[in-house]
């Protein structure tokens, strides 16, 4: 394995959790729900996935339970913001804080325990391709899922009637309700999908990236994922590109440190956020870009009038 291959492989591994979490959040935000609890859902997914994998010895069962944990955690968010109409920003922040604390408590006995790794699955013939083979066709199941997720979400949002309805809700929940679309139900599904994706992203961290449990091991990836959705202006393919770009920055920062480049690592860690601010400035520059790219009812609670 050449050095370039090794670097690219680590970039892929670093990008996958960002991609998954951001795709989930993208769907939730497209329906008009801003869930700032991504970090909390990732870390819950990570601890549950690690614990189940370690106890059962089956990493696949672990990954599945990680996704379910994220989903259940997001259901709490849905219950609070959609049914009880609490403020989405405050509730999301609370969810992150709760997730970080709760995962630390659950994972206390697992600290330092050896983990179970999710082994790569080689796809016959294709894995023999030079460079692309080991990079794309000899990966773990979660990587394949993350790519399928991008294709699936793109198809769902832009090719199906349900996807159209979901985007309509995000644009104007009042008008959507008037047309007879069920706003709250659709948002519940969108939030739960977001939770499952974040949970799976967490499972990738504790089963693939570094197969062990460390407290706060999500290490800010939830925030990067949130920034990524804005950076990608709510478009799935741009999320894919952005996730790999941000993944490359993360890895590049490690290599830059190792090679003793003069760039402070703090600057590189801040790059994703700086890029997001830049994108926001560009989008906000004119009304048309804002209208076209931002779900107009994002973050607003919806109470149907009777």
């Amino acid at each position, binding site marked *: 394995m050449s050095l370039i291959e090794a670097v690219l492989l680590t970039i892929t591994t670093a990008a996958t959790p960002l991609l998954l979490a951001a795709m989930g959040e993208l769907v939730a935000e497209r329906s008009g729900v801003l869930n700032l609890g991504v970090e909390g859902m990732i870390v819950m997914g990570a601890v549950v996935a690690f614990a189940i994998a370690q106890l059962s010895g089956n990493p696949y069962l672990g990954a599945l339970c990680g996704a379910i944990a994220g989903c259940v955690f997001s259901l709490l968010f849905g219950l609070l913001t959609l049914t009880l109409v609490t403020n989405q920003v405050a509730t999301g922040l609370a969810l992150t804080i709760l997730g970080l604390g709760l995962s630390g408590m659950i994972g206390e006995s697992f600290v330092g325990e050896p983990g179970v790794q999710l082994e790569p699955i080689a796809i016959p013939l294709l894995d023999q391709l030079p460079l692309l083979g080991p990079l794309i066709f000899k990966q773990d199941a979660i990587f394949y899922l993350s790519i399928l997720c991008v294709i699936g979400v793109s198809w769902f949002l832009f090719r199906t009637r349900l996807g159209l309805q979901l985007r309509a809700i995000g*644009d104007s929940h009042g008008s959507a309700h008037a047309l007879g679309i069920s706003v709250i139900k659709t948002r519940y599904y969108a939030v739960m999908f977001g939770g499952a994706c974040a949970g799976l992203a967490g499972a990738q961290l504790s089963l693939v990236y570094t197969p062990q449990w460390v407290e706060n091991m999500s290490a800010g990836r939830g925030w990067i994922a949130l920034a990524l959705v804005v950076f990608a202006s709510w478009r799935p393919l741009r999320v894919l590109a952005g996730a790999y770009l941000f993944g490359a920055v993360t890895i590049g920062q490690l290599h830059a440190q190792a090679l003793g480049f003069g760039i402070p690592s703090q600057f590189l860690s801040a790059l994703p956020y700086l890029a997001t601010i830049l994108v926001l400035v560009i989008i906000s520059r004119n009304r048309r870009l804002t209208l076209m790219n931002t779900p107009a009812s994002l973050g607003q609670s919806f109470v149907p009038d009777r």
Partner: protein
Amino acid sequence: MATQEPGHGDCLLEVRGLTKIFGELRANDGIDLEIRSSEIHALLGENGAGKSTLVKMLFGSLEPTSGQIIWKDKPVVISSPGQARALGIGMVFQHFSLFEALTVAENIALSMDDDVSIENIAEQAAVLSREYGLPLDPNAHVADLSVGERQRIEIVRTLLQNPELIILDEPTSVLTPQEADKLFETLEKIRSEGRSVLYISHRLEEVQRICDRATVLRHGKLTGDCDPRAETPASLATMMVGSEVKSVSNTGGNITDQVLIETKQLSAPARTPFAVELKDIDLTVRAGEIIGIAGVAGNGQSELFDVLSGEETTDNAGDLRICGTDAGRMGISARRLLGAGFVPEERHGHAAVSSMSLSENMVLARHMSDASTFLTGGPLKIIRYDAVKNASERIIKEMDVRMSGVDPEASSLSGGNLQKFIVGRELDRKPSVIIVNQPTWGVDAGAASRIRQALIDLADAGSAVVVISQDLDEIFEVATSIAVINEGRLSEAEPASDMTLERIGLLMGGIHGEDSPVGDTEMEAAHAH
């Protein structure tokens, strides 16, 4: 025009004795209406005449209190918009319900019941829009489209459901004249196919231009059923604004020579394609005088209010003088400090913040002009809640505002009670100048007379009052002088006692009348197109 079609008679929709009562208010009182096949039928009336209520009952969004709707010779009960659509009634709303971030085709697809693919809808919509001369690009995003284009989407969306009757709610109020011309061509095409159109408007000229018949409503009652082309604008206006004008109760006792509001040749360009340009407005209001400004909606009333109140400033400070000071470049608070008070037309979101309490709304309006009463001195300017509470209690008592609880949210009050509070908030300052726009729009009779009496009392106490209103009864009731606004021009104010309904009708229609005492140059100017 009465083309007989096989299968159903001449009459497409018939309404008999339709009545809708909200509490005490008879919004519709025994309305009869007949719409024939392939005709464009106008529903005329001022704001609050009951047009929307009638149409909502026809479209199934409101349930009639009593009366009968007969569709193609069969009595029907229309209980939901879906049912109306199934019968063949389509509606284009005044305020569109479109999704800005989605494409035209996607917007149309969302309102279609069948599970048709988006590509198919795009194709159908493209064919239909070509056929009706409504150019639409199915792949364009709504956010990029003009209001006229958005209306086309709504019309195409309605036509795709293949209705026999299309209801259009004030369609031209948001259109430029060119867009309106295109709409009229479409409506004629729709009529030529044997479909009917119920066209709601208060613009006499367009009704005369395109409508075969007209039904006129006033205060919820039917006041006319005619062929608009056989009528004059003056006679139509008379049906709309009513003939039962009450005797003038206010001839003005003690008008002094002190001029408190003065504009000379005030002009203001239109700020949006849908706004009206103000042209050479001359207005002089003296202490003790109440000037009523009449006119059909959309002729520059709100633009005039904006300029007088300071929501829009004029080019030159001297264009407007309030209490002897050049105020044209001043903002609202500065004008309030001169002793002026303002009551805008929209109660919610303009005159009051719906989600805030009454006392907070009072502070919002008067924190500058009455800073010494409501705020403490010093840099922090802390609100003195005891003073605020006293003042709002005083207003509530003075204006007889009915409400539940102590200091409730503005949104919890009925329209009439909130309006009484808003007017009272201004009157409480004893302003030397007050400008009110549509003070009793959508307000019940009791509250309306309370508000009018308060305005008369204020003038008697020596203030100058401007009442902009579309309700002629109201204008005759309160005004000492009457002026008419038409297409952004204001006629010369004439003493209310000399004004006749015919003359106002002519000035409102903006059309020369042979039998009117023309010859005076103001009239010429007011009517020049």
